[in-house]
Every structure is written in C-alpha cells, then in structure tokens.
C-alpha cells in the first residue's frame, strides 16, 4: 500500500513537474577565478554578489541561484564548465566570459542546449557577425568598437603615425583591426605578443622596436596583469618623451590601484576609450559605484559594471514573463528592448544583440580622496553600432 502510494506520488511528480513554473532562476556565471587573471574574475564576482544583494536575490517571485565557475583562463576548461552548467546544473542562463577565445569555445555548448548565453565582457567579431544567435546577448561591446573610437581620437589629435601592440589572440586581433579601421595615418609597426596562461610579460624587445620606429603614438591593449607590467616598462623605457600612449582596456580600476601603490605616475593623464566610467552621471551608476566602493573599498572596473548590468538584464527578462522560464520568446523579446536601468544609461540592441551605445574618452586622474581613477573628458561616438552586424543573418 505504502509502496503503491509512493509510486503514485512519484509518477504524479514526473507528470506534473513541467506544468508548474520553476521556483528559482538558475544562472551559471563563467569567469576566471584562478591564475593572475583571477583579479578580473573576482571583480566580476563581487559585482554580481552586489547586484544579488540589491535585488534581494529575487527576480519577480522567483529566487535566484547563482553558480560561479572558473575557466582557468583556458578555452577548453571554459567549455567543460559550460557543459557542466547546462547539463548537470540545468541552468536557465549562462553568463560571464572575460575572454573572447573562451567564449568562442563555449558558445555552442550553451546555445545548442537551448539556453540564453550572455557575455559580460568578451565581444569577438565572429559572434557579432556570422555566428550571431537569437539567444546570445552582450552587456559589453563588440571588441572592435572601443579601439575604433580610439582611432577617431588619434585622428582628432592629429597623430600621423602609430605603432600597435596587442596580445596574439582573438580579442587582440579585433582590437588592432578596430583601430586600423578608423585611424587615418600610417601604421609604422605592429607586434602581437604571446598570450594565455604563460603570457609574455617582458616587452623589452617590442619597446625597443617602437622606439626605433620613431612612432608619434603607441596604441596598446593589455588587459589584466599584463597592463600594469606594460605601463611600468613603458615608463622605464623612456618612451614617454617621444611617443604618447593610447590604451584600451588597459588602464582601469584593476591596474590603477597597483600602479598607484607602485608610484608609477607616468600613467596619469593617459587616454583611453570606454563605453562607461565610474563618474558617468546616472542614478543606477551612482548607486552601483558608491555601494561597490563601500563594500569592497575600491572603484569597480568596467568588467564589474558589465557584470552588474548582466544581473539586471536577466531580471528584466524574468519579470517580463512573470517567472515563466519556459517562455523563451517572451524573455528574448524583453531583453531585446534593453528595458532595465543600465549603469551606462539607456542603450538599445542591434539585431546581433550587441549594444548600440556611446563611447567616451577617459583620462586617468586623481580623485578627491587621492585615489587614482578615470574621468570622462569627451564623447567620441554616440549610439555607435559595431560593423559586423551586417554579416549577421538574423
């Protein structure tokens, strides 16, 4: 009798389970939590934790379960972790991804399983173009956009010849392609350096080449720990007298505190382009930056800003369908509107689901409390869309 009842209950459970809406939203967040790049991953995790605190771990009536996974800075590990998230945890959203090559390796696992994939940082050209997908969204940018804005800055500043340095991987090539697309002068030299877990951190040979090329300006992209190392060597090489430094994703809230501790004042005044800055004037950003500083004692980086936005983007989707997570079309339509308070201010999505947004020129400055941060000095592009969207078949 008892056995029978149990069986009946089990059968009932099996049949009725899909009929009820799930009682929690599961989000998998893949980032780098080990190796030197963990400093970026931790900043993103901090921002997600803060966002969860601000929404009370609730999206509509549903509880939110956030599962963090470490990609170890390696595409193959990122893919394994994504597989684990969609297969064994059965998450509803896969988010995160710092690195373009990790995202490229992992995208199929998430999208083939019918999950939403949200990039909180990486924006490789392939995913904006030929590989675009209806269930992919970005809360960051397409890789080429930020350096394209920088090319525009170089033109406005009358730079005639430029040297380019970037790491030799998907994003490094996109960054270099971006600046080359908009810069009108001549490129006198270009070096792509070894990247990955055993990335090249000593740039003596490349800096010597820059010097002998006689370039007026040097454009670099060195995210994470390589950024600090690069700035130091740039200063030690004495290049700053002849060659002005322009960066993307290199001088940020990750590298500046370390450069400040190391008293490397050469970085102050250097220019970078970005879609966001801690001093951007809107209510959501003010709340984000001040509570982040209060909780963690440092300025949030742009990685943190994008991760914070990721949580609010997902929240807008879940609330639009009243917690019915099986309604993929409804959630997609909601996210396409980008109808949530973003820390960058209002923006819209292109058909490849990359943001159409402003790009600003930021300068490294000392704030009122003596901390080093960045400040917006100019708007370079308004509502800028990436160039690969035309290749997207959606």
């Amino acid at each position, binding site marked *: 009798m008892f056995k029978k009842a149990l069986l009946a209950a089990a059968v009932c459970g099996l049949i009725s389970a899909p009929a009820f809406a799930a009682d929690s939203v599961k989000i998998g967040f893949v980032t780098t939590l080990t190796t030197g790049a963990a400093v970026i991953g931790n900043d993103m995790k901090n921002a997600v934790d803060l966002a969860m605190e601000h929404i009370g771990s609730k999206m509509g009536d549903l509880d939110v379960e956030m599962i963090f996974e470490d990609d170890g800075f390696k595409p193959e590990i990122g893919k394994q972790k994504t597989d684990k998230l969609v297969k064994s945890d059965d998450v509803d959203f896969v988010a995160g991804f710092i690195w373009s090559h990790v995202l490229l390796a992992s995208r199929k696992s998430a999208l083939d399983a019918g999950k939403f994939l949200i990039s909180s940082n990486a924006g490789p050209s392939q995913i904006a173009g030929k590989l675009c997908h209806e269930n992919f969204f970005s809360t960051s940018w397409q890789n080429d956009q930020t350096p394209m804005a920088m090319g525009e800055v170089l033109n406005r500043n009358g730079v005639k010849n430029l040297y380019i340095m970037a790491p030799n991987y998907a994003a490094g090539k996109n960054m270099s392609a971006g600046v080359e697309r908009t810069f009108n002068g001549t490129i006198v030299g270009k070096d792509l350096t070894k990247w990955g877990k055993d990335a090249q951190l*000593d740039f003596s040979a490349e800096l010597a080449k820059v010097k002998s090329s006689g370039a007026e300006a040097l454009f670099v992209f060195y995210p994470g720990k390589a950024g600090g190392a690069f700035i130091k060597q740039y200063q030690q090489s004495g290049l700053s007298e002849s060659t002005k430094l322009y960066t993307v994703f290199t001088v940020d809230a990750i590298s500046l505190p370390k450069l400040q501790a190391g008293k490397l004042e050469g970085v102050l005044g250097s220019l970078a382009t970005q879609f966001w800055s801690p001093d951007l004037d809107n209510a959501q950003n003010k709340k984000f930056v001040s509570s982040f500083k209060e909780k963690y004692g440092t300025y949030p980086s742009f990685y943190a800003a994008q991760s914070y936005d990721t949580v609010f983007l997902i929240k807008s989707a879940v609330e639009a369908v009243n917690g019915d997570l099986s309604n993929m079309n409804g959630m997609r339509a909601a996210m396409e509107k980008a109808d949530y308070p973003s820390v960058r201010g209002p923006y819209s999505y292109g058909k490849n689901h990359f943001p159409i947004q402003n790009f600003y020129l930021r300068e490294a400055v000392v704030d009122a409390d003596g901390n080093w941060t960045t400040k917006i000095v100019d708007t370079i592009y308004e509502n800028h869309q990436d160039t690969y969207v035309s290749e997207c078949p959606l």
Partner: protein
Amino acid sequence: MDGALVVVQLLNGIQLGVLLFLVAAGLTLVFGIMDFVNLAHGALYMIGAFICASLTLALDSFLIAIALALPATFIVGYLIERVFICHLYHRDHLDQVLATFGLILVFDTLVHMLWGPAGISYPLPNWMNGQVNLFGFVDFPLYRLLIIFSGITVAIGLYFVIVRTKTGMLIRAGASNRTMISALGVNINQLFRYVFATGAMLAGFAGMIIAPITEASIGMGSDVLLIAFVVIIIGGIGSIRGALIASLIVGLIDTMGRSFLDDLMKLVVSNQAAETSAPALSAMLVYILMAAILFFRPQGLFPPKTR
C-alpha cells in the same frame, strides 16, 4: 633594421639570458647531482619576488629588501629540502615529479591566500628608473643593465666557487658520480642541502629583480620553469657552464625572434600571416633548438664529465 636597434636587442637578449641563468643554475645542480627532478624550483622564484615585494613596500627601500629577502629564500629553500625533498631521493622520477608538482599547487595557493590573487607591483628607486647612453648611440634602461651586471657577477662568483674551492670540487664530484663521493666519506646529503638552498636563493633572486619590471604574480614561476628546463637540457644537465651559455643562447634567440622574425617573414608571406604567425613561431624557436640538440647531442652542449 638599424644598428642601434640591433645593439639594444642584443642587450635585451643578454638580460633575459642572465635571468634564465639564475633560475637554471640551481635547477641544473639539483638535477645533476641528486638526479632529482624539481618542478617546484619555479615556486621559489615566485616566493622570492613576493617576499621582496612586501619588504620593499614595508621598508621603502628596494636594496635593503633584496638584502633581507635573499637569506629568507635561502631559509625557505633549506626548509623545503628538509621537510619534503629529502624523502624523495630514493623514489623514481615519476614520484618526484608528482610530489613537486603538488608543491607548486601548494605554493601558488599559499601565495594566493597570503598576498591575494592580484599580484604586487613595487617601485624601483628613482635613480634606477632612468636611461643610460651606451657607446654614444643607444639609450638603454639602466635597470636592465643592472640586471645584466648582477647576473654576470653571480655567474663569475659561482664559477669561482665551483672551479676553485673545495666545496666546488665536491659538488662537481657529486655531479659526476654520487655513489663514489659518498663512499669516500663526504656527507653528500648535507652538501646537497646547501646546494638546494643556494639554488633556491638564486631563483628567488631572479624573481626579485624581474618583479619590478613584470610585477610579482601567481604562476610566474611555472612560466619560467619550463624555459629553465629547456636551458638545462641544451646546456647539459649538471653543468653550470652549460647553463650559462645555454641561457644566453635561449635569451638571444627568444629576443631576436620577437624582434626581427616578423619583418623577415613579411619578405616571404603576406603581412597579416606574418603578424599572427611570427609571435607563435618565435615562441617555438627555442623548443625547436632543444629538439635539435636532443636529436644530435642528447647529453647537451657542455655535459659534466662523467665516469
């Protein structure tokens, strides 16, 4: 390609070479004398950098920090030998590799816990930050020149100790035939303990002097360890002279490859292909050299005289 650039790149190559030598010297002695594969050697490079970073920031003096961090890494090396390594000599290479790989993970995590994941960047004294004019036509960063000088000083010192002193004679004897030297009544274990600690200190020293350029970070040891193994294989395991020459060869090949390979490749392939494949190829050059050495002269260029 102008003359000044070639000279600067030669100096950069030598600077990388002497740095590799500091790491490879300890590794080759440990491998050569005790036939012990120490993957954890790179961890000491990292520990040296982190200790020096903390001391520099606390004392506000890079030179005093180095003076204190050197004995500190010596002690760390001594303790590691005493606590872990001395139990592993009788085991086979696989056990040694596994155990010392475990040590790498332990040290990486320990550093993560003590210093955080971010790594530490520390300033040089102002007078070291400048440029010097060499031979009247090239400017070279003074600090990199100091690295070359200190590396060469260490190399000369080691050469003197090993070739001219009794301790050095015992070390060389140990590298040639360990059983014979202990049969002659020399306490090879005691000797080895100091060799190990000295090797640790030299690796630590390399870490201390490179960190102001690249910053102290987790995993920096593993990066350098791989290339240090290449150096000792090319140079001949157990040979200090081989380690020095191989270090310089590897340093020069790596730097020259990074400097001029893409320009050379542009002569034969398209610009874009050259730009993306040159860095990969120049990173491979030293391994290609190692493969060639292993094929034509497996004992290395300057193997210690044995048997």
